């Protein structure tokens, strides 16, 4: 069936054809279930849950009881199908509802679904249509309850969900790192009216106030005053107007400021005051602007009064009046700043439009316990902020249709804060915010674009025998390149742009096209080779004096760290010279030391273990570049233990523990770590944290303050970054920090 052109075009002047292929919008419909729909005044938000089958690279140890031969690989890599849960949210204009329902009906295979949860003001209007088309029973859910549920969900699961809007700043959107405890907060929902809700816990919230002067007042009164029908058009008018032609300002009354009260001359004394005393025609633009100011200021004032009364400082704004409109975000921000003198910041949400649908979905999915899991935004499948904003980019709106998507993956592990963060509330993982730093942004976007060919080549090489590898790799290239282009124009699309988010986006795009672990074979080869050198390295280290040994071990850690396929300078050398090995790496550092984990990390922890130190070795849960994964590490450790009694004993005595960190990124967000790791850290009373590698210690966590001693080490494998930090490429960062006493 064709999705385009199926709708009556009479009522709207806009073209209703969907320019994206519908199967790219309603993805994974075959096994979709637990539908929820939120129908607002103009937009519909559809939510469903699907299971995604995708390939994952699994490693499995061979049976080593038989005598080994040199040619035997260490372990076996198999690509397996894994099923993971994913949430899909799609936003589109109400005009498409019928077409969309038809498409869903035709592609829905799953028959266990009987009910669709519905919320929003338009839900009753479309009830019959939905029941007829989908043959599902419409089950209505309370709007505000859904909204709050959705809000809690995004605040908990999307680190850069909230932002401050600053119209005249270098970057309009300033993302806030979400406080680990999201409660209490105030949600000001500006729909046709205004609701002010205080949220104290997951299921504890109260409407503490509201106002009838809201989006409906702007729209209704605006339409009467300007004869302009559409809300968007009214905002457009307002953005071109001069409110001072309509409003009576303090200076119109005083001739200047009202100094003794600190009221400036430009302050509005009486909204529309000039139209009461002046007998003239007012322009539509000016009236719309005056109305916008009047309503925004009024809402801001009430919000402040309620925030003050309830002693709350986190105030989020949502509702159709706000929904991605820079004009209203600006006026509300201005009003809040004015009335609280900067004490309270107006916060907005990236996925504000989806809150109702997310909440309705969660209501319907309670038996799946979605709140017991951690979820992560899938950058590959999500459109990003402002993807369909008419004000920002009218051309793009026309091109990509009016569909906006959000996809969230259920993470296998529950993620929590590292208990050793000195101040979880102020912890920001990323070292450089590319949303704000224009030069850095340009550099890194260029870098990732340059590296794309190599990544595509590597992806194909990793699946030579797999079907359609070239075709899929090409799709990956297109997708990621498109993401990079979007980020060039809208760096705020997925929250703060960082090297980490660029890397994660690439991983998500690779996964999307079933390249779960392009480096698996390289890792395998490297591990194999490194194992052969292990005893030799250990032995040579043992022969050194204590002091020399410490130096050598640390250099070993750093030399191993050069083997990072993420860094272009290194991958260039590695691609061109397959024989480039550990000795070369040492020379590059003008001195000595094992390929990352085996020849760098293990000799180092071995020394610690000999000292009697307990070691928890944390590694990635999922693959990212050539970083070792926890499952690979299990096998490697087993093999090393077979050769080395020190490791063997430590494992047996549980003085060496291998724990996964919950991450599948070359970078590390210490506020989203595996719960098990956090527990182990707490139980074992960890007193030293060593963070190794450019992704984890430089791109992220460089400034992280821990409550125990910490060591951050890495080799700067990027000349631009080295220059920025005031050094040369392959310079070493070795940062030992002791927490200040005051922090206990």
């Amino acid at each position, binding site marked *: 069936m064709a999705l385009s052109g199926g709708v009556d075009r009479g009522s709207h002047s806009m073209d209703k054809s969907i320019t994206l292929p519908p199967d790219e919008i309603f993805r994974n419909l075959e096994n979709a279930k637990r539908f929820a729909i939120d129908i607002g005044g103009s937009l519909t938000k559809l939510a469903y849950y699907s299971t995604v089958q995708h390939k994952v690279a699994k490693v499995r140890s061979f049976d080593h009881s038989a005598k080994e031969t040199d040619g035997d690989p260490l372990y076996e890599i198999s690509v397996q199908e894994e099923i993971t849960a994913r949430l899909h949210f799609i936003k589109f204009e109400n005009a498409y509802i019928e077409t969309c329902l038809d498409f869903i009906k035709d592609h829905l295979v799953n028959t266990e679904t009987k009910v669709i949860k519905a919320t929003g003001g338009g839900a009753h209007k479309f009830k019959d249509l939905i029941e007829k088309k989908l043959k599902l029973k419409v089950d209505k859910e309370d709007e505000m309850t859904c909204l709050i549920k959705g809000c809690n969900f995004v605040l908990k699961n999307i680190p850069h969900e909230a932002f401050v809007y600053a119209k005249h700043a270098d970057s309009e959107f300033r993302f806030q790192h979400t406080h680990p405890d999201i409660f209490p907060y105030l949600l000001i929902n500006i729909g046709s*009216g205004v609701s002010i809700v205080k949220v104290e816990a997951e299921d504890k919230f109260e*409407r503490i106030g509201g106002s009838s002067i809201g989006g409906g007042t702007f729209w209704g009164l605006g339409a009467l005053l300007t004869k302009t029908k559409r809300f968007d058009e009214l905002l457009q008018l307002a953005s071109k107007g001069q409110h001072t032609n309509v409003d009576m300002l303090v200076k119109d009354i005083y001739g200047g400021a009202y100094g003794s009260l600190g009221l400036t001359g430009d302050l509005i*004394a009486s909204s529309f005051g000039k139209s009461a005393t002046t007998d003239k025609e007012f322009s539509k633009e000016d009236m719309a602007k005056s109305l916008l100011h009047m309503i925004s200021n009024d809402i801001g004032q009430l919000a402040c009064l309620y925030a003050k009364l309830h002693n709350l400082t986190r105030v989020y704004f949502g509702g159709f009046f706000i929904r991605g409109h820079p004009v209203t975000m600006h006026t509300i921000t201005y009003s809040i700043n004015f009335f609280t003198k900067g004490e309270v910041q107006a916060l907005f949400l990236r996925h504000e439009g989806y809150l109702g649908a997310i909440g309705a979905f969660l209501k319907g999915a309670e038996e799946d316990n979605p709140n017991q899991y951690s979820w992560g935004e899938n950058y590959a499948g999500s459109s990003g902020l402002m993807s369909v904003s008419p004000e920002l980019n009218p051309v793009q709106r026309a091109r990509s249709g009016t569909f906006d998507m959000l996809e969230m993956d259920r993470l296998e592990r529950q993620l929590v804060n590292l208990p050793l963060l000195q101040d979880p509330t102020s912890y920001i993982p990323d070292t450089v915010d590319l949303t704000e730093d224009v030069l850095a942004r340009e550099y890194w976007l260029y870098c990732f674009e340059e590296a794309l060919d190599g990544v595509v080549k590597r992806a194909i090489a990793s699946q030579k025998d797999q079907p359609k590898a070239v075709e899929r790799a090409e799709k990956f290239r297109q997708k990621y390149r498109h993401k990079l282009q979007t980020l060039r124009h809208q760096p705020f699309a997925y929250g703060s742009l960082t090297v980490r988010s660029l890397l994660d986006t690439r991983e998500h795009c690779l996964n999307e096209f079933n390249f779960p672990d392009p480096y698996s074979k390289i890792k395998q080869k490297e591990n194999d080779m490194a194992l052969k050198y292990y005893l030799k390295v250990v032995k040579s280290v043992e022969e050194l004096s204590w002091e020399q040994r410490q130096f050598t071990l640390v250099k070993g850690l750093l030399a191993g760290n050069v083997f990072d396929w993420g860094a272009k300078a290194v991958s260039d050398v590695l691609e061109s010279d397959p024989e480039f090995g550990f000795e070369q790496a040492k020379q590059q550092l003008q001195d000595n030391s094992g390929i990352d984990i085996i020849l760098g990390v293990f000799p180092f922890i071995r020394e610690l273990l000999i000292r009697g130190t307990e070691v928890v070795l944390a590694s990635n849960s999922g693959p990212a570049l050539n970083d070792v994964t926890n499952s690979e590490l299990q096998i490697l450790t087993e093999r090393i233990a077979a050769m080395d009694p020190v490791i063997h004993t430590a494992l047996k005595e549980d003085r060496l523990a291998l724990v996964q960190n919950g991450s599948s990124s070359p970078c590390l967000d210490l506020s989203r770590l595996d719960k098990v790791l956090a527990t182990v850290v707490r139980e074992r009373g960890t007193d030293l944290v060593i963070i190794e590698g450019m992704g984890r210690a430089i791109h992220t966590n460089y400034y992280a303050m821990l409550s125990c001693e910490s060591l951050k080490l890495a080799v700067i494998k990027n000349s631009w970054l080295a220059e920025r930090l005031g050094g040369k490429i392959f310079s070493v960062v070795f940062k030992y920090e002791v927490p200040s006493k005051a922090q206990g």
Partner: protein
Amino acid sequence: MKLKSSSKPAFPWFGMDIGGTLVKLVYFEPKDITAEEEQEEVENLKSIRWYLTSNTAYGKTGVRDVHLELRNLTICGRTGNLHFIRFPTAAMHKFIQMGRDKHFSSLHTTLCATGGGAYKFENDFRTMADLELLKLDELDCLIQGLLYIDSVGFNDHPECYFFENPSDTQNCIKKPCCLDNLFPMLLVNIGSGVSILAVYAKDDYKRVTGTSLGGGTFLGLCCLLTGCETFEEALEMASKGDSTNVDKLVKDIYGGDYQRFGLQGSAVASSFGHMMSKEKRESISKEDLARATLVTITNNIGSIARMCAVNEKIERVVFVGNFLRINTVSTKLLAYAMDFWSKGQLRALFLEHEGYFGAVGAFLELLKSSDDA
């Protein structure tokens, strides 16, 4: 008010409050003029007195609120009547010209003025009519004027009133009352815009906040929406209209009460919410629009005032300002809003001389200033 009678200022005694929309003027007409005095009285002073007291309308737009006149008032040792006059600020230049034509400057009186216009028109008074203004702070004047009028009463009646049974439209009755324990009070002055003051004592107050949605907004929007030209016209239309044709109520959205949040079906959910629909816009009457504008502005002021009262922990809320003139729709609505939303904790109080307290305060300063001299 203790005013020494030793050194009286020269007549005429005026107090003026030049607001954004209206100029409020109080004039003291001495009734105890002796024959001797009368003989000495210069001609233009007599003519001013005669002009002001024998007319109730001045030019096209000036009005004397005869019903507010305070009779047999003794002040500064003189007895007479206090007159209350208003005209639009737009006519200010005409007024100044009149002052010039009547050689006001020859009377050597001090013209005490408050309100923003005291600053804005200061130079015009000087250059056009050779008059010097004594500029006074409008909030100081407002409070002093209010306390004075309340203390002298309204021709043997209380100045203050409230509404009994504010939540019951059938039995809601205006009742006079005495402001025994004045302080603390939240004073809400609704002129073109709104100022909200917390008053703790005669000379101890702070401006809590204000809003630009005031009387000027009501009239301004009404003029644009209905084509009316005056406040009286706008109120007349509003009195005949039905705001529920314009506003979206809770029941229009939820079919009844929104029980989850304890909202009554009859509560306004979205002011002008029905006007989002083209059909409804096309069939709506001017009267309904005027009423909705009035209700919207009034409820909003009520809501902000109530929040301020709660934040400042003040139970008495006194509403003044010319927005409330001949506007029982708003006074009753404010009384209802205070009572309903505070569950009876807050009481709305009103004063008969609504918008004139600033001018009275300025007038009092005249008597004080010559005292100091």
